[in-house]
């Protein structure tokens, strides 16, 4: 990993975010620009316009420490501690129970579906 490659990769990511922000604002649709940027970068990688090694260092670093990047947004809940305190029970129970429901239902449906597919492929 070299500093130059890291910086050039970062420049590519910023350029893509810039581009997708311009596109979204021109189209006036409620869609997060970074998500469009992700789709554009995937397309550029698939077509070989951007080589994997231009961006692999910066992408690896950002993904590896993504949790750190969420920290400021998490701290912003400090502004709404009153609302959270007033309805703590419904908020926290809904949060925990629905998370369990979503994870288990999705994972189990896919596990069964993929197991069937595997068996089907073998026969």
């Amino acid at each position, binding site marked *: 990993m070299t500093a130059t490659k890291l910086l050039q990769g970062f420049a590519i990511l910023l350029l893509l975010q810039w581009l997708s922000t311009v596109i979204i604002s021109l189209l006036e649709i*409620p869609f997060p620009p970074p998500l469009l*940027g992700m789709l554009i970068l995937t397309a550029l990688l698939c077509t070989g316009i951007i080589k994997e090694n231009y961006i692999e260092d910066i992408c690896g670093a950002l993904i590896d420490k*993504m949790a750190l990047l*969420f920290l400021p947004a998490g701290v912003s809940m400090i502004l709404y501690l009153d*609302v959270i305190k007033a*309805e703590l029970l419904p908020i926290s129970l809904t949060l925990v129970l*629905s998370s369990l429901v979503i994870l288990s239902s999705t994972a189990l449906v896919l596990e069964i579906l993929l197991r069937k*597919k595997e068996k089907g492929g073998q026969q």
Partner: protein
Amino acid sequence: MMLPELLLNSPLFGMGLTIIIYCACELLVRYLKLNIIPPIVFACPAIILFLLYVPNVSYQQYKIGADFINFLLGPATIALALPLYRNRHVIKANAFSITIGILVATLSAIFSVYLLGKSLGASEAVLLSLLPKSVTNPIALEITKTIGGIQPLTAAVVISTGMLGATINHKLLKILGVKNDLAAGIAIGASSHGIGTSVCAHVSAVQLATGGVSIALTGIATSILIPLLLPILKNI
């Protein structure tokens, strides 16, 4: 302890506090061998307590520097294209299963949150703010704005959902006997977005890639389905 204004009014304060506390929590987690719990679970309350109890320190001052770190979420989201590209064959080969998984996740999210929240007595505004809690923050905030929830409350529950997911996802999947990385990745991305998926970076490349796909697709599906289903939900 009184911190000088020179420090507090500079980006150094918020940026420094975020990175120093995060690294300290990372070391703590490693030292105590708690590697199943992500450092953010300790770092987030630690910073909140710091801002609440250290005299003369305000959230507004923290935000000056913290915004720089928050900004990096954009490039980091774009960076998810790399695992997506590297695992494109797995994704292409399983396009049908992935679509079904995303639909199950999105529908179970919308119905479980609404019905649970309502039966537990959440107010209308809180209920609406909770609805998009499993999708990535930028999309969740757009959805809340469209349906009339409280945006910062959505941000708080989205982050909490992610932290909960990062802590329990892999344990729950083990209990459920889910062994397929693709099933795990889609379920994790769909239930706890980027924070939950960030743990997959240390588990498997396929999980990380499908987690990234799942974040994008559930985000899109949720933003289409919530406004469509809301009139039906309100009649239940």
